[in-house]
């Protein structure tokens, strides 16, 4: 007899505001910044060229703000696993990203982030979840907060044609 995966799916009805994971530490690794610059298309030399960055008045190379998604990820799959669930077998389209920074990201520093399911809502027959992430640097200072919204249920088949 084949083994069936009986792990429950993290459907919208199962998801609860407050579902979370313990904080995670991720280093702002210069190699990871270089990979971001190489793969994202966001390749301004202030991120990689020390002399160029200093010539523009910076005190060294800068860290792209879009690195936030890598150094403070939502870790939603881990949140689901902590709840004893697995990710739905369907795309959950990224609907909105709202991020606020309170300090610059610095290469080499350790970022500690906390992630949780912060909101659920319905709009036009679609069901959405909003992941909340807060991150601090190694001095304990808030660095960023963001909200990442996914359409969890109700993405339409016509999306194939859009």
């Amino acid at each position, binding site marked *: 007899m084949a083994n069936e995966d009986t792990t429950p799916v993290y459907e919208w009805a199962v998801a609860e505001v407050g579902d979370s994971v313990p904080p995670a530490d991720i280093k702002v690794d210069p190699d990871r910044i270089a990979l971001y610059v190489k793969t994202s*298309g966001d390749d301004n030399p202030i991120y990689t060229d020390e002399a160029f960055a200093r010539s523009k008045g910076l005190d060294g190379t800068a860290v792209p703000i*879009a690195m936030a998604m890598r150094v403070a990820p939502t870790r939603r799959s881990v949140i689901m696993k902590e709840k004893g669930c697995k990710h739905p077998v369907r795309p959950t389209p990224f*609907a909105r990203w*709202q*991020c606020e920074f309170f300090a610059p*990201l610095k290469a080499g520093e350790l970022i500690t982030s906390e992630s949780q399911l912060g909101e659920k809502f319905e709009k036009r027959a679609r069901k959405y979840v909003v992941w909340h992430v807060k991150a601090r640097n190694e001095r304990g200072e808030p660095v960023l907060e963001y909200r990442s919204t996914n359409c969890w249920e109700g993405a339409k088949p016509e999306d*194939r044609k*859009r």
Partner: protein
Amino acid sequence: MSTAAASPARFEDIRVGDGLPRQTWTVAKEDIEAFGDFLYPATAQNPERRGNPHIDEEYARQSIYGGLFVDGNQTVALLCRMATDWLPPGSLVCGFSEVDVKFPNPVRVADVIAFSGEVSAKTTEGGRDRVRLEVLAQNQAGKAVAVGAICACVPRGGEMNNQGA
């Protein structure tokens, strides 16, 4: 939208209505895969890769999208590139930036995406000079694939720009 304005050196050089130079991106499958490897590293136990429609081509083909499509995070990165390339150096990265972007339509392989932006406000508050940009990314059919705003704090002359406050 006004015509593209030259990159301003200082906050004082920025005017409401200034248009940012348009940037374009012709999406290749390799672009999607490479960014997927950045965002979801190919480690044996990474749960973010299995059934990920930005990495797993067969899964994506069978999904409602019918094929690989771009992770919205990559679209955000390219909107940030447009802003970074135009604003005075250090503006987005000095802390105190805000990004709010919605993704009304997917971005697919072979799409040609045009990125545009315009200055909608300038404010000075709490000793910080801030600029708000309305930003937009559209595909070749003119459909919006990303729309929103980027607010940046523009460093003042002589500041150690990426040191924060």
